[in-house]
């Protein structure tokens, strides 16, 4: 098959799988599983095939529709980074699909779930390959709705529906900006084709405005401050979904789009500065919030927020390739961590670390996989995360300007905090005495769950070495990914400090939570600096109040005017009818008085003429 048709097939295969899956009756688990896994596997195979065959960027397009002078093209724009991300998506999606078969073994709504995961995959792949911003937006939003559906999947969790709505609305708020940004770019270029948009000159103001608008969408999707609040709540979804959302799809989309449209952002300093500040804040915020969580998935969720900020930081310092590198490694180790956490939860029956402990003996595979994942997360050499994080810090240190300094400093501090909370998670989960009955008798999950975890450990551990391959660097469009010089010592030292600090605190009382040393800051971190509450008070409640008052105004004033006109007419009718409820003589008076008045008026008028 020619690569021209393969490109569009990339999202099409899982899309068809999703469509068929949605039409299935709920009971047909097997077919659903085949469709789900088949869709993801098909996409992965196509991605591999393309990766092997495509050397030069290429694009195809057909006109989807034409609005006035603005055509919307359906087409793909495929280059090397595209395929790397597509591969990552394929791998994670396949892992998630396989894992889900077992994880949702006793869920009677598995069929729609699998189809929705397929749709999610298709949407992400559409974002990845699309050559047209409008079509990209299609994928972008479909992903949002899929995240909504999947987060709200769990019927037992009372907070699930709310979290799902929150995830969609918060990202949708950002998408207002994203849409407007696309509109600015498209109207300016007279086309929504990415190639045209990137190639057509923008005035500085327009460019800045467009970039900032797009950033709002990116912040929403990639969970950057201040639109990050949906992500931890999204943990209400089934664990594989968390893996999917946090690893390769959804959150990655924002980073990917910035990288794809990088010329728009780099054209003026303002967007980059905003990116930098956003990254610095989010990085620390996420990491600090992760220190005080008891829910294992929330720890991972906040770590995602923080890690995404690294990628944003890389973008801010002019290194989109590096950002994609971290995206890939993060996809691997975060998928691993979530799936592993899923195994733990599966075994313990709870999300809370206070009910775990000492699990390493009962679940060795999970333990070792998690250890690799956490090592990659904190940047332990030579695991994957080390290389990519190091590349980001190096890129920041090489760049000049306050933004770069800010990114670098916050990056290093975050390494410390990350090391601390990762260690805490590791120790609290797998060491010490079991703190609940379930934790005393842990068991490894079934193969369908264990294998994806184990397999994902491979890239988590080794993907970093890809940085040594020149081909990989070319594909990401960067040089010198590897910086084996003295500057790597700074993060390594900081890392060690973090790990040791956590270990020392833990060792004093292995049953207690190391987070206790945070003292009064603990609730602040646990509640992520109360940003949720602030948002609720500043945005949600006012909007609700506004809605209520608008409804009141609409019903009592706007409609009141209408009803009032009706009633008024009737009352007037009543009044006029009242005048007629009189004797015959009033009629005579009316005739003669009327004649007199009209006569007088006519005489007066006639006199004028």
């Amino acid at each position, binding site marked *: 098959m020619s690569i021209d048709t393969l490109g569009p097939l990339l999202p099409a295969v899982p899309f068809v799988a999703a469509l068929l899956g949605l039409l299935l009756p709920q009971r047909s688990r097997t077919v659903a599983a085949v469709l789900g896994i088949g869709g993801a596997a098909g996409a992965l195979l196509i991605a591999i095939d393309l990766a092997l065959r495509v050397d030069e960027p290429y694009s195809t397009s057909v006109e989807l529709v034409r*609005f*006035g002078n603005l055509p919307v093209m359906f087409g793909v724009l495929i280059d090397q980074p595209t395929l790397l991300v597509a591969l990552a998506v394929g791998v994670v999606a396949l892992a998630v699909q396989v894992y889900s078969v077992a994880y949702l073994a006793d869920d009677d709504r598995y069929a729609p779930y699998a189809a929705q995961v397929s749709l999610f995959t298709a949407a992400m792949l559409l974002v990845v390959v699309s050559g047209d911003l409008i079509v990209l937006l299609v994928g972008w939003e479909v992903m949002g709705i899929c995240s909504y559906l999947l987060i709200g999947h769990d019927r037992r969790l*009372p907070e699930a529906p709310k979290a799902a709505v929150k995830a969609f609305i918060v990202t949708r708020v950002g998408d*207002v900006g994203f849409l*407007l940004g696309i509109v600015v770019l498209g109207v300016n270029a007279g086309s929504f084709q990415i190639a045209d948009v990137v190639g057509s000159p923008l005035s500085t103001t327009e460019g800045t405005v467009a970039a900032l608008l797009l950033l709002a969408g990116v912040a929403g999707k990639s969970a950057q401050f201040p639109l990050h609040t949906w992500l931890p709540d999204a943990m209400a979804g089934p664990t594989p979904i968390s893996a999917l959302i946090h690893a390769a799809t959804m959150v990655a989309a924002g980073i990917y789009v910035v990288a794809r449209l990088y010329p728009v952002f780099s054209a003026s300093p303002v967007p980059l500065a905003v990116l930098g500040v956003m990254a610095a804040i989010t990085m620390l915020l996420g990491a600090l919030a992760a220190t005080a969580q008891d829910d294992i998935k929330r720890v991972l969720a906040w770590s995602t927020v923080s890690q995404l900020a690294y990628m944003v930081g890389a973008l801010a310092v002019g290194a989109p390739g590096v950002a994609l590198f971290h995206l890939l490694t993060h996809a691997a180790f975060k998928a691993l961590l979530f799936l592993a956490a899923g195994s733990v939860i599966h075994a313990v029956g709870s999300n809370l670390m206070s009910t775990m402990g000492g699990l390493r003996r009962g679940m060795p595979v999970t333990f070792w996989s998690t250890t690799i994942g956490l090592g990659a997360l904190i940047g332990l050499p030579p695991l994957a995360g080390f290389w990519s994080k190091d590349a980001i810090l190096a890129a920041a240190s090489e760049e000049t300007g306050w933004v770069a300094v800010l990114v670098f400093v916050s990056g290093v501090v975050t390494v410390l905090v990350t090391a601390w909370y990762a260690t805490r998670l590791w120790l609290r989960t797998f060491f010490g005495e079991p703190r609940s009955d379930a934790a005393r008798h842990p068991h490894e999950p079934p193969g369908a769950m264990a294998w994806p975890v184990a397999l994902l450990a491979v890239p988590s551990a080794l993907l970093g070495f890809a940085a040594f391959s020149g081909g990989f660097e070319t594909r990401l469009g960067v040089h010198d990914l590897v910086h084996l010089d003295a500057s790597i010592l700074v993060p390594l030292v900081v890392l060690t400090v973090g790990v040791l600090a956590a270990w020392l605190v833990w060792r004093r009382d292995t049953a207690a939570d190391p987070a206790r040393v945070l003292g009064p800051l603990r609730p602040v971190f646990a509640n992520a600096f109360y940003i949720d509450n602030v948002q609720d008070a500043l945005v949600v409640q006012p909007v609700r109040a506004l809605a209520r008052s608008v409804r009141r105004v609409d019903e009592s004033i706007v409609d009141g005017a*209408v009803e009032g006109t009706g009633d008024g007419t009737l009352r007037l009718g009543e009044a006029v009818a009242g005048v007629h409820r009189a004797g015959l003589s009033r009629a005579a008076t009316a005739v003669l008085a009327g004649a007199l008045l009209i006569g007088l008026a006519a005489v007066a008028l006639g006199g004028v003429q």
Partner: protein
Amino acid sequence: MILVAVLAIPAVFAVVVALLGDRIGRIVGTAAATLTFLTSLLLAVRDDPDPLPVGGRAIQPWQELNVPWVPGLDLRFHLGVDGISYPLVVLTTLLTLLCCVYTLWMVPDAGRGRLLTALLLVIEVGIVGTFLALDLVLFFVFFEVVLLPMYAVIAVWGGEGRRHAARKFVLYTLFGSVLLLVGVFTIVAATGTADIIRLTATSGAGMSRTTQLVAFVLLAVAFAVKSPLWPLHTWLPDAHTEAPTVGSVILAGVLLKMGTYGLIRVAVGVTPDGAARVAPVLGVLAVAAILVGSLVCLAQTALKRLIAYSSVGHMGFVLLGIATLSAVGIQAALIGNIAHGLITGLLFFLAGAIKDRAHTGDLTRLGGLRETAPTLAGILGFAAIASLGLPGLAGFWGEAFAVVASFQRGGPLWTVLAVAAAIGGAVTAAYFLRLLRKVTHGPAAPSVASMPRLSPAEFVSWAPLIVLTLVVGLLPALVLGMAFDPVWSLTYDGSLVWFSR
């Protein structure tokens, strides 16, 4: 020939159905609706497959019929179909057919299903006639035809407060159409012709600037009431809340489109100069409609009322598109029309199904639908998601490109309007998700405890809407391809604003 058939079949059968027995009447009515639908598809056949291009603002109907009717009133029986009207005609015949099919099995409590079917056919005549008319006076006549049958549908088969709602509907919309009458004859008096083709080609030559302005304002108010545009919308929630399911479907699905279609074909077509001068006001009101509609929905507790108010918001996008007077905007309006017809039609079908089963439309008393009726909940989810303008489904194109058009228009006002409209889009998402959370999620409420399975009538009448929502979403060119040339020419090669400057 086909033009006449599309009107004559439902008209004749409406009478026949009213005279037949109840069950056979409904069957014959459905057959007639099917026939009409199939005939309307044939309208795509072009009399002159390869017409010579005509410059300027030309309407080039694919099929045309032009015979005098009442010369004394400048009234000619002048029908024609082109890319602007064709999709709406087909949508009308399709929705009527689906409603007839639905009535085949599900007759509202008041009974007399054959009369309901007959009235649906009469309404179809009026709506299709409005879309096909190429004579101003004829347009007005068809515009009026719909009024009383719709009143009857609400007043006879409606809910608790049906009489009040029906009266409000009929009086309010009559208020609009009498202004239309005045507007039409303002134009006819000034230009001496009621031929829409000629008036459009000359951009209403013969009218002074003031006359154009006055005429446009009259027409715009008339169409704004029908559409409805905030703040002339308040008949709509009442009518929708009380109307029977099929009534709501027709009302939202196609009746409102008479307003927006009229605005495009008549108001903008015949009085472009007036339109260009009033457009900013129209744009501001359209955005106000979007924001007010969506905010009210956010605080709304009744299911059908919420969907009704969502119509106000959606039609706001359509009207915003028209107000930009650009090819982009008007195309967006056209596809917005179709999408809203499909999606809101489906939503009202669903609301009706839920209300029939749960015996309440109160959001606070519903909940957990996906536990007891997963299919229904799934379709409701689909419809809600489509309605909130999810890209890839039909609703997206109209809304996104209304924003595009508004932005493209340029200038601070239109930019602000574009931003506000986009924000309105976000609020739309918020209230639809709130709706889903209240209705489908959570533990099953007592009201939804026993939900009968979906009947074949429901499947048959919903499936086309679901499929079309998806298909139009993926292939918007299905609707817009044929509309491109007419809109391009109507907007004088892209934008009337440039033309009027």
